[in-house]
């Protein structure tokens, strides 16, 4: 039996908001993250997948059948909405067992044991009022409730957003471990890019109601599909440019504002003279000493400049450099690396925009 969930030219209209058209398939067993800013339509998309919204056009199909044509309880779906949806009139234990109770089934003792241990549900089970639980405890109970039915597909809407930062990472890893143990497909909505990269086997970027890119995290990181995706993932280091020449080695590019020339190893197909946007992630920008000899792997795309300012982040620093040509370049590196190099505002440095990390976009 195929349980692939497919969206086919799906369009949803809610009030003044239009989502789509979207084509997307969720494979059995995969962890798919839908990421995008607030109001992009991620939750609407998720709730259309589970059959809560009727598409204006196109279809959401489960194993070839329109989702809404299948009785809700027989879709094999579990959903943890952003507001968690525990029932205030039931005890924690009753909440946990509610889906099984409705189906007249007893919980699988082994699964219950696994979930109780992993989610640390033991001390919570005898609580009478789920409203007395903390946010993290509620999330754990809701996740346990969702998984105890052995769903084929698990849908999570911002499961970590309301958690305190120190609990968030722990919960993210918990989600990853549970997925590895139980093997159900997961569709996970988040606005947090880091969470998307941490958990997603594939990441779907939703912007303004459109699906802009679906790729594994490495691909998404290295090659954003368009300018909007690149801006969402990292708004820094995006420069209008033109192609000077193309060859087997990639493309030589010239930045329009400052005239800097650099090489991109994997440009989008282009012709000489054509306009484009050049980008590089701040994490890929190397900071080099101003006067040490260059290592062989950083011989090209190197520009001299001055540190304009250094922003201290949590465990990392952001170094804003302006090159001699006047190009603003942002680099992010671990604090220890910055300390080793004794970086300071006003001091001269060189930056290297590695050719294999430079990507190009259609303007």
């Amino acid at each position, binding site marked *: 039996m195929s349980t692939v969930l497919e969206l086919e030219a799906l369009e949803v209209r809610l009030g003044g908001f239009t989502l789509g058209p979207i084509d997307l398939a969720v494979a059995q067993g995969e962890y798919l993250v839908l990421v995008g800013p607030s109001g992009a339509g991620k939750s609407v998309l998720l709730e259309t997948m*589970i*059959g*809560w919204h009727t598409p204006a056009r196109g279809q959401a199909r489960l194993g070839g059948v329109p989702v809404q044509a299948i009785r*809700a*309880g027989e*879709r094999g*779906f*579990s*959903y943890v*909405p952003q*507001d968690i*949806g525990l*029932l*205030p*009139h039931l005890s924690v234990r009753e909440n946990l067992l*509610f*889906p*099984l109770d*409705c*189906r007249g089934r007893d919980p699988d003792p082994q699964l219950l044991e696994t979930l109780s241990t992993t989610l640390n549900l033991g001390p919570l089970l005898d609580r009478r009022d789920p409203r007395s639980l903390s946010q993290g405890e509620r999330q754990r109970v809701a996740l346990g*409730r*969702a998984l105890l*039915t052995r769903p084929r597909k698990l849908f999570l809407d911002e499961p970590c957003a309301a958690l305190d930062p120190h609990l968030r990472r722990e919960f993210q890893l918990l989600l990853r471990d549970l997925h590895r143990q139980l093997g159900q497909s997961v569709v996970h909505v988040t606005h947090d890019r880091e969470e998307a990269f941490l958990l997603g086997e594939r990441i779907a970027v939703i912007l303004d109601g459109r699906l802009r890119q679906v790729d594994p995290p490495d691909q998404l990181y290295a090659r954003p599909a368009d300018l909007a995706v690149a801006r969402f993932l990292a708004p820094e280091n995006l420069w209008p440019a033109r192609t000077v020449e193309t060859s087997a080695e990639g493309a030589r590019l010239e930045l329009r504002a400052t005239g800097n020339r650099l090489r991109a190893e994997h440009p989008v197909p282009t012709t000489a003279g054509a306009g484009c946007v050049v980008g590089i992630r701040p994490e890929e920008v190397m900071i080099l000493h101003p006067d040490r000899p260059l290592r062989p792997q950083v011989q090209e795309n190197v520009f001299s400049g001055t540190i304009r300012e250094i922003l201290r982040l949590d465990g990392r620093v952001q170094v804003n450099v302006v090159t001699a040509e006047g190009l603003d370049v942002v680099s992010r590196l671990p604090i220890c690396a910055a300390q080793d190099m004794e970086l300071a505002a006003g001091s001269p440095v060189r930056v290297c925009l590695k050719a294999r990390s430079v990507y190009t976009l259609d303007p």
Partner: protein
Amino acid sequence: MSQARATPRAPHAAPPGMAGKLALTTLVVLSLFLLSLIVALVRLAASDAGRPAAFSLASLLLTSLAAALAATALALAFGVPAALWLARHRFPGRTLLTTLLDLPTMLSPVAVGTALVLFLRDPPGAWLEGAGGFLFGFPGVVLAQFTVIVALVVRSAEAAFTDVDTRLERLAELHGATRRQVLTRITLPLARPGLLAAAVLAFARALGEFGATVTVAGTIPGRTETLSTGIFLALESGELAGAARLSLILVVVAGAMLLLLRKVVGWRR
């Protein structure tokens, strides 16, 4: 005719200075006024004013409670399903329908009673009358009270159902609950406080109902005479102490209902 009406203020927005003193004074005057009404009842009830009471208290109380309970049960049976439907559907003509439903609550009960009497005289109402014997019978008391309170039940129950998060219902369906289970295990339990409030309010209103009851069923001792209509009869026949005693019973019952309402529903203020 236009009259200025006192609008309730938010409790935390205490008006300062003069306005505050004025507001407090009105509150005190109002409380004293209501309290003195009860004191008047107590004094009169304790005296032997007027002729000795010529009614059976037990019979009045029994008729009143039985009729109010029956009317409330009927109103819930008809009103709650209707309210659920109203809360969950948007349809053309909704405003018209809800206006119709609200009408009995807004009208003078005597007008409602008159309409009922006229309805029961001719078919199709006459068939109903043939089957139930409403006019000047105990069923008439129930019917009159039902007519006055059913809209109250529908509208409060509708509010209770509207407050239930439909996403919880849909989530339960997704997790395998049948329609019936959603109703009995999600919707009704979550609406329960509101539904109980509706029931208590409806019962209290039925117990105090006078105009429609007296028009449809009259005041036949032991059959259709209730506490409320009994008070009127007692006053008319000069049994002041009796009227006061009956009124006090209503005060006690109403007070008990309000306390129950707070206890069960967690109503404050």
